[in-house]
């Protein structure tokens, strides 16, 4: 096993990790602060991807497509909060799960009606396609490096907003004691709407960045949502720090598992046995990890309020 390969696979894991983080950040904030289970978070991922693709094709500018896609997802997120989710905060989790599952169906059908069921393959502008030579012999796709950079920048920005600004203070206060914050004259409802909208926009960002790698199709959000739930369970519900740690752990475990489990098994077992067991074990790896974390630290690795 050479060093370059491990490094390259680690970059792949990092790239998957930051994508998962963008999704998990919004989901975990909404869950931790508003105590709302939002299954429809994957729908914002899909909405972001569709809107950015649509605006990119309409305007011909990738950057404009990204900006309009982000703004669009923010608006959709706020609208969903105002129309549907606002009435759910006081209800039980089961009611929330049912209602937001309904939203998933609604958004998937809506996307299918507008853009069709067939997948859309988006292209990258020339300045983002191709590869860069990191070291001699290690070529890495430029776009994936950009994803990593954007993801890490957003993580830094989020930390700054939550830990260092007045808005972040209100968010943390609202999470600890909603009634007290409201009594101090803060409009908690507006705060919630804002947080939800930005959570949706982060999911949209993940979606629109994933578009050129995967494909844009109805139901694309649900494919990643399961892994995102694993991330926030491992990281600890409601904690941004936990979401980041969980996302990186899951991203690495999944990628390195896909890459190295089969060759490692092959050194112990026969090749045929490794061929069968390897891919199966690799796809189970993150769930095994979640089970272990749940057994040892039921609150997750970085609980929000310890």
């Amino acid at each position, binding site marked *: 096993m*050479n060093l*370059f*390969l491990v490094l*390259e*696979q680690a970059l*792949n894991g990092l*790239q998957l990790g930051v994508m998962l983080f963008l999704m998990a950040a919004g989901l975990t904030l909404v869950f931790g602060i508003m105590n709302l289970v939002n299954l429809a978070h994957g729908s914002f991922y899909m909405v972001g991807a569709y809107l950015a693709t649509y605006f990119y094709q309409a305007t011909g500018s990738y950057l404009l497509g990204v900006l309009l896609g982000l703004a669009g997802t923010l608006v959709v997120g706020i609208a969903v909060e105002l129309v549907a989710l606002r009435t759910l905060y006081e209800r039980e989790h089961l009611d929330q799960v049912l209602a937001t599952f309904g939203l998933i169906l609604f958004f998937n059908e809506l996307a*299918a009606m507008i853009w069709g*069921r*067939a*997948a859309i*393959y988006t292209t990258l502008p020339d300045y983002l*396609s*191709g*590869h860069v*030579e990191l070291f001699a012999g290690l*070529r*890495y*796709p*430029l*776009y*994936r490096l950009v994803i990593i950079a954007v993801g890490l920048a957003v993580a830094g920005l989020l930390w700054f907003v939550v830990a260092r600004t007045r808005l972040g203070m209100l968010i943390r206060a609202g999470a600890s004691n909603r009634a007290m914050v409201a009594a101090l004259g803060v409009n908690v409802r507006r705060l919630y709407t804002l947080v939800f909208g930005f959570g949706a926009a982060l999911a949209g960002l993940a979606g629109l960045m994933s578009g050129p*790698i*995967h*494909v844009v*199709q*109805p*139901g694309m959000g649900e494919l990643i949502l399961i892994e995102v739930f694993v991330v926030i369970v491992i990281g600890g519900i409601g904690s941004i720090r936990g979401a980041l740690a969980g996302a990186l752990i899951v991203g690495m475990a999944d*990628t390195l598992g*896909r*890459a190295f489990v089969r060759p490692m098994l092959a050194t112990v077992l026969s090749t045929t046995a490794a*061929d069968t067991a390897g*891919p199966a074990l690799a*796809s189970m790896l993150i769930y095994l990890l979640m089970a272990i974390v749940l057994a040892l630290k039921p609150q997750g690795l970085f609980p929000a309020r310890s």
Partner: protein
Amino acid sequence: MRQKTPSTVAIGFAAALLAAGPALAQQKVKIGFITTLSGPQGVVGEYMRNSVELALDHLGRKMAGLDVEVIYGDDQVKPDVGKQVADEMLKKHQVDFVAGIIWSNVMLAVAPTVTDAGKFMIGTNAGPHELAGKMCNELFFTTSWQNDDTPEAMGKVMQDQGITDVYVMAPNYAAGKDMVNGFKRSYKGRIVDEVYTRLGQTDYQAELSQLRSKNPKAVFVFYPGGMGISFLRQYSEAGLRGQFPLYSVYTVDEISIPAVKHAALGQYETRYWSPDLKNPANQKYVADYRKKYGKMPVFYGAQSYDGILLIDSAVRAVKGKLSDKKGMVAAMKKADFASTRGKFSYNTNHFPIQNFYLLKTVTGPAGQDPVMEIQKTVFTNHKDSYAKECPMK
């Protein structure tokens, strides 16, 4: 001889009407066409459905004077969903033929359901080895190929060129295994590694990193439909295109070329059909397809077009008497229709005996996408390797 009374004439007339009853009710030829119409692989189904519609246009939407009704079903690349759709077509819509099916795993679930119900299964893509061999059935015909055939041709091309140290990749399902087996039947050189990925996977970066570290001399892959688009794009993005020559089957085609454009240039494929195949039926099919849908057709479509013509040839042979199964089987065995691949014949297992060509992606007309061109014939009148396991004679 006694003279017939008016009442016997009336009874006779009534009997004639009753006898004609089922024929009157059976005014339509009903075909259930199953393909994938949603998700990343839905792009393939669209070409197949378009080609079915084009075939119906060419037939004037009638077979032996009977109206034709096609019911389309979406299998979502899932065997259980495909089987449900087939059950619904057989029971609710009472179809006479089930046709289509892209995926071998779906085909293996659907074909027995249809033939056990005493109806025809006309495969227009998937060719799993089970159906060519032990599971062959009188009511099963295909207008495509057996899975092993095409990679066998590519294996021969690479063997003849003296290529060694090949890295092999395919999705982990029935056809993926068939393709690799077919490839290994004629390619005898060293295989560096054999990697199977999840069916429908869209991100191949981790596997591509692995590939690069093994430093093979050439790469052979099978990534049909949407998977091919993702794979080719990422192969190119990762900078592997210049490093390792890529040989493929069912990966570079008229579906993936418009999506990956220059990333497909110079790619070799083997195939039984190509848009530039010179015969009147094919030239008409390609020209009319382009006129009606504004795109180049793809082999999935040519096979589906042929499937409808095969059904038509059988319905005409029995003069629209759809209950005459034996007559229709006999008619289909003759492959008596203007196939887009030119004249071919059926083997005892109802799989075609046909030619396979080496195709190359070359620059298209100015301002248009690259096109595929036949370079040479690899196999002439090729038979699949499983026919001898089929008990049918």
